[in-house]
């Protein structure tokens, strides 16, 4: 008797199905028909791997431990923004500068206190991208990905050190890039217009079941603010791969880099001469997720990133002493390098129907090197060891408690513990109230802790020896800044009226604000003011009629300082405007047209690069008109964008203004 064993193709991973052949051609014909592509009860009875396991399920908005604003892919395209920083002006409570003076456009939440925004955390696909070189600033990190690669930006307004790490004092910006499986094929875009706007971008994605890949390269260039130094250009390339090594596992690989070339300084300012500046950054990362069961999963992440900053300028020594000749020039070099390595392990566990726990550990090593800033060729190494955890607990039917904490040990500044608790109360019919309190820290950055800026140059001819002027010398006595934030939030969804309202009332108390003491040389850093930030902000989303989408934001902020130093010229209370509003209105029109009107108004506030003396209000109106187009098998969009239809406004420095700009964009994809 024949007993062929039919091996179902291993491609489909079935178990061996022994099929007995009773003699008879009829049955043999039947056996031949039983190929792997044929339906049987196996399709109904077989087990499937767990795909959407506990950590893969995002929290719905009414369960997030804080106010979250989500800017999705579609919204990003509609605003006509050319930088991620430009998008954040549509999130309530944010201050945005488009200047490249502090290396890249800046965003801050609840106050642009200084020229580097380092009180917020910026994550790209879970990888923290603040700059160790620039005292933790997120400006450069915002340039990492091209806008076309972004799936959505989630902004958590409020302190969340407990989940995201030490710098999440005022908030967290989480950029999620598009999954490679969603960007298969070719896509490209161009922007051309006034003010030297020249952007070009190309992307290609490929792959199949086992893995999908994408490479995206782009260049973004323009002439920058009027009065600022020179052209701003960013060149980027990013590669991403999403692989499924085994059912239930995901492996993500990323590699990329960007290069910013721009200019700093301005004419007539001898301390900040006009000069070119360059910043390069590269990264490699690997992200592995494994589902153990439907209620348990683990993930492992490793990333390495490097940055290098080039900035030198000639300083005429005649400014120091008229005895110098015109040819006595001293090159001030503010350049250097930094790198970081991070390893994170995370475990997600659903302990019961009412409890979900996510916890893990992270080791991060940062190295900064700059002769100009630290007066040494060796690297400053800071190692962080972190333990974090968050428990989601539903004690009763309409109540959710998120309780978490982050313990951090820094090799330089010791231990901190940042706890956070937030209660969400579902009142019913789409309404939720939130109450929470959290504590956060910002450890002093390498520069604030160890700066040692010397200017060493020969004395004028006729004298012997050198001048050794110490410009900045940190005494290294700094404590981390601490923040205790309390908030009450409300989220209401009204599907009948196609409306949703998100309100956040906050009381953020910061102690030990680290500030450079400029009144005496050498400048030192010290923990100075206590800063209190109180107020409220809300977002109203509405779809009033077919094809229309409205988003209206308002924020009311009052900043007070209790200063331990003479405060006459401290601009801190004006770091955020007392009132700011923004509106984005999109309307779909016939003939595949879409019109978007955007308006941003901000009360008096200090400019990011200057202090007390320059406080300005700002208003800006943008318009975008887009038309969907087809070209052969490709589809795309052509759009006209007009930025700042009104009067020019000051941005970053009083001397820099944002003039009106018009440009045309074209996007095509298969």
């Amino acid at each position, binding site marked *: *008797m024949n007993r062929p064993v039919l091996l179902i193709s291993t*491609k*489909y*991973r079935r*178990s061996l*199905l022994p*099929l*007995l052949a*009773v*003699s*008879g051609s*009829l*049955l043999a*014909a*039947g056996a031949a*028909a*039983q190929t*792997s*592509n*044929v*339906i*049987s*009860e*196996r*399709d*109904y*009875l*077989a*087990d*499937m*791997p*767990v*795909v*959407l396991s*506990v950590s*893969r*399920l*995002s*929290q*719905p908005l009414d*369960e997030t431990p804080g106010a979250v604003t989500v800017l999705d892919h579609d919204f990003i395209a509609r605003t006509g923004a050319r930088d991620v920083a430009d998008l954040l002006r549509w999130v309530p409570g944010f201050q945005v500068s488009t200047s490249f003076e502090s290396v890249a456009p800046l965003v801050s939440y609840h106050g642009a206190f200084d020229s580097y925004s380092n009180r917020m955390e910026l994550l790209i696909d879970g990888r923290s991208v603040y700059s160790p070189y620039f005292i933790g600033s997120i400006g450069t990190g915002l340039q990492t990905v091209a806008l076309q690669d972004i*799936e959505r930006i989630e902004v958590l307004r409020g302190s969340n050190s407990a989940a995201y790490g030490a710098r999440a004092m005022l908030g967290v910006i989480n950029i999620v890039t598009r*999954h490679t*499986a*969603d960007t*298969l094929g070719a896509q490209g875009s161009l922007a051309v217009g006034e003010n030297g706007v020249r952007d070009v971008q190309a992307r290609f994605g490929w*792959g*199949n*079941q*086992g893995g*999908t890949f994408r490479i995206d390269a782009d260049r973004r260039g323009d002439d920058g603010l009027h009065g600022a130094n020179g052209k701003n250009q960013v060149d980027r390339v990013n590669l991403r791969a999403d692989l*499924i090594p085994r*059912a*239930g596992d*995901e492996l993500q690989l990323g590699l990329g880099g960007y290069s910013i070339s721009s200019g700093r300084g301005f004419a007539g300012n001898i301390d900040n001469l006009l000069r070119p500046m360059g910043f390069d950054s590269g990264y490699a990362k690997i992200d592995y997720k494994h589902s153990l069961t*439907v209620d348990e999963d683990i993930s492992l992440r490793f990333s390495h990133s490097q940055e290098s900053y080039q900035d030198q300028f000639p300083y005429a020594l005649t400014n120091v002493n008229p005895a110098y000749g015109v040819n006595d020039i001293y090159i001030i070099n503010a350049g250097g390098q930094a790198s970081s390595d991070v390893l994170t392990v995370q475990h997600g566990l*659903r302990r019961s*129907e009412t409890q979900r726990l996510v916890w893990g550990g992270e080791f991060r090593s940062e190295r900064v090197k700059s002769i100009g800033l630290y007066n040494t060729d060796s690297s400053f190494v800071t190692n962080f060891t972190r333990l974090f955890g968050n428990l989601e607990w539903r004690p009763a039917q309409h109540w959710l408690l998120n309780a978490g904490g982050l313990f951090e040990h820094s090799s330089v500044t010791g231990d901190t513990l940042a706890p956070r608790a937030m209660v969400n109360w579902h009142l019913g019919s789409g309404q939720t109230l939130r109450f929470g309190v959290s504590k956060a820290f910002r450890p002093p950055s390498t520069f604030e802790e160890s700066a040692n800026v010397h200017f060493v140059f020969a004395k004028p001819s006729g004298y012997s020896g050198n001048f050794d002027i110490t410009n900045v010398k940190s005494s290294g006595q700094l404590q981390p800044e601490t923040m205790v934030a309390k908030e009450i939030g409300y989220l209401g969804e009204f599907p009948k009226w196609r409306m949703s309202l998100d309100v956040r009332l906050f009381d953020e108390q910061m102690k030990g604000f680290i500030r450079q003491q400029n009144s005496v040389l050498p400048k030192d850093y010290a923990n100075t003011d206590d800063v209190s930030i109180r107020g409220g902000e809300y977002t109203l989303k509405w779809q009033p009629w077919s094809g229309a989408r409205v988003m209206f934001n308002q924020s009311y902020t009052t900043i007070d300082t209790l200063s331990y130093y003479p405060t006459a010229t401290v601009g801190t209370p004006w770091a955020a405007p007392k009132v700011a509003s923004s509106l984005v209105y999109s309307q779909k029109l016939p003939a595949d047209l879409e019109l978007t009107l955007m308006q941003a108004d901000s009360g008096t506030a200090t400019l990011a690069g200057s202090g007390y003396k320059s406080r300005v209000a700002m208003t800006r109106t943008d318009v975008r008109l887009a038309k969907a187009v087809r070209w052969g098998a490709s589809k795309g969009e052509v759009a006209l964008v007009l930025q700042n239809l009104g009067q020019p406004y000051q941005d970053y420095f009083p001397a820099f203004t944002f003039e009106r700009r018009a440009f045309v964009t074209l996007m095509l994809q298969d």
Partner: protein
Amino acid sequence: MRRYWRCLCWALALSLGGTAAQAQQRVVIVSSVGSAAYATMAKSMVEVLASRGVVSSDIVQLGASQMAARLQSALSLQPLIFVAIGSEATQLLSSARLSVPVLSTLIPRRNFERILQSAGRVPGSQLNALYLDQPLRRQLALIHVALPQAKRVGVLLGPDSAFELPRLRSLAAAKGLTLRDAEIASSDALFAGLHRVLEDSDVLLAVADPLVLNTLTIQNILLTSFRGRIPMVAFSQAYVRAGAALALYSDPAQVGRQAAVYVLEVLRGNALPDHAIEPDDFEVEVNQHVARSLGLSLDAQALRLTLRRLENLP
């Protein structure tokens, strides 16, 4: 004394001779192997039969290989009805020319029809099946009741499920739903088809087809549909565990209970129905975690009762 011993010998002979020697078997159950579901179904069917007076000695349970051996040898069985569980057993019994009705169970409709075609048989009261797959109208009714705001139903069809398309279209239209379909001819075409369908759908209806839905493809399909905030409505508990928001299925115990009813009819002297038999009892399962993440509020029990009420079932 001698009579006593003769009775004893006779009793021994009977027991040693095995079930094949019994002249009283009325039901023969032939089960495929490889899944606990077959045994669960058989057990529940036997329980119902037992409660209606069919004793265990009336029932013979065999694996498909044992049955094949029986068919080869002279030890034939003459029950009043054969019940085949699974496609392996159905394959076997449909090729053997049996003079007794055969009820095939735990088998999808398409598979049953294919087996019969290759065996040169036609379905009828001599050879009929209780299908495992839920009627399409019930699946669309579930979508309508559970996701009332979903107006566009996306579906991916492979070579073995493409035949469902016309029926799907007309049923969807009758319910005021638009169907967004893609036919996948090979696994390379899956991604493109999946994106095309998801771009324009509010819900993804899973239709069984080993080319489209298997342990390799399920990850991409669930992750992609979840990213697009599109729930999947599937046809087994395993899919709900994997991440489908909803599933509509008959569990093997329910199938066993329904099969028992038809077996009893035949034992009473009536014939099997000559038309397709659809499952009349079913379960609805919800993945509450996925549902919550998608902002859906679903009650599995309530949905099941609503569906039963709609079909005028108790």
